[in-house]
């Protein structure tokens, strides 16, 4: 079982609220998954130190430094819930 503090920590990292009713379930489930993950530590890699992040073999992909097609303001704001027509409106981020 993961403790309430441990669950609060991982939920904070993932920016998730946790309801009081969920601690018991998450405590067990997260413990089960993390126990499985621990197995990775004991895998014998025979001294290998190289890593593989992606199967992609392309080398040095650069985009051209040129102006391409752009989205309209209407398109960008199309799925925004809180907007004043020109900007996306969010709660104040900086304290005075």
């Amino acid at each position, binding site marked *: 079982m993961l403790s309430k503090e441990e669950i609060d*920590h991982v939920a904070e990292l993932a920016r*998730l609220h946790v309801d009081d009713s969920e601690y018991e379930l998450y405590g067990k489930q*997260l413990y089960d998954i993390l126990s499985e*993950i621990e197995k990775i*530590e004991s895998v014998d890699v025979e001294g290998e130190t190289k*890593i*593989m992040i992606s199967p992609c073999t*392309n080398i040095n992909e650069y985009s051209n430094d040129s102006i391409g097609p752009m989205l309209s303001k209407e398109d960008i704001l199309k799925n*925004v819930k809180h907007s004043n027509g020109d900007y996306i409106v*969010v709660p104040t981020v900086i304290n005075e």
Partner: protein
Amino acid sequence: MSKYLDLSIKEINELLKNKTIKPLDLVNEAFERIESSNLNAFITLNKEEALKEAKELENKEIDNILFGIPVAIKDNIVTKGLRTTAASHILDDFDPIYDAEVVRKIKDSHMIIIGKTNMDEFAMGSTGETSYFGNTLNPWDNTMVPGGSSSGSAAAVSARLVPIALGTDTGGSIRQPSSFCGTVGLKPTYGRVSRYGLIAFASSLDQIGPITRNVIDNALMLNVIAGRDDKDLTSSYEDVTDYTSLIGKDIKNLKIAVPDFYMSDAIDKEVRNKVTNIIDMLKKAGCTVHSISMKYVENAIPLYQVIALGEASSNLARYDGVKYGYVTSEYKDIEQLYKMTRYEGFGREVKRRLMIGSYILSGKNADKYYRKALIVRKKLTDEFKDVLSKYDLIIGPTNTDSAYPLGTKQDDALKSFYDDLLTIPVNMAGLPAMSLPIGFKNGMPVGMHIIGNYFKEEVIYQLASYIEKELNLNLDPRGDK
């Protein structure tokens, strides 16, 4: 009701060319079938646009074999002006402003998009049960899971609602439901098909691929969607070939490996027996088939949990209630806006995976788990490369068993990972692989896994077409209707 959608793509194409039928007949038939189906295979239908498109095609020349063919798209692939949800509450009203590259190619081929298929939320699951829109049913037995995450795509093709659907595969999400529903599902080589417009789950593993009723239709669809795309920087420059080119060709010189892990006691005995029968068939046909051992495939589950969930936690950080999607009404500040939106918008499976992923990448854990996993990934990939330098193909079962009842172990957090035990290693290495129906266990389909070398999908189709022809299975879940 007409039965044109029971025909192969080639047969439909002939009927269109000799003007026996029009694209509109196919579209009408698809919607008749979908609307009388109880499978919940679709989240959003594209009826108005599809009918309009079908009528417009009547004035166009038939310029390719897929012209006028109805197709369904998994709902994590964006379609301009057609709602795309990833089966999540957090995107349940999302209206994309552009088409994915595969969708652009489909439209260029004048195929007709019928709708968006149901799936596990954000492709996280192996049963279809994590969908916000309710689970998809297996057409062979409505009490059984259809597999996932491309549940609706596999179910819709199996039940003959559409001839072709696109799925996506991060750890087995095309092959596993194809195995459970009796369809042909291919995960192409990483980089073969553009991911531009695919809602990202784990970017180094995700790949889009076709789900069809037979092998040649699958290859025809890969012909449409494969190729370099400048909008996806992981897209390969490797030449695209005609993926039907080796279908029907002699298989007697093929060298095939069977990893012992894929035939171990962890796999259901009847499933293993089905694969053994195929091995005997291939030996008789002149193939060389050897049992081999692979050391690193057994680490698939923890490897996937670290890499896929780590990448997912980063990719899904974008769902913050600001730019698009669901927004909570309960917030006082920006932190609470994020947390409550994500708490209310994501389902349990997704939240669990995001917590694990964030934890793995945080502080010292990044080195302890993530870096170690990347080394194991390298070793596993090298091992596959070594085997494929000696053999043309690797075969085994797609899954540990056939489909199981809905609701089984829904609270078991590890279940959905173990369903992908045999499919995950392929995504880690970035190889192409197919699930091909090879028979039934208690009336439910069993799939065989055919893994190929990088960018050699045509060899997978070559072997699959031979087995398909030899077995000549009746893969219609509706019986003799």
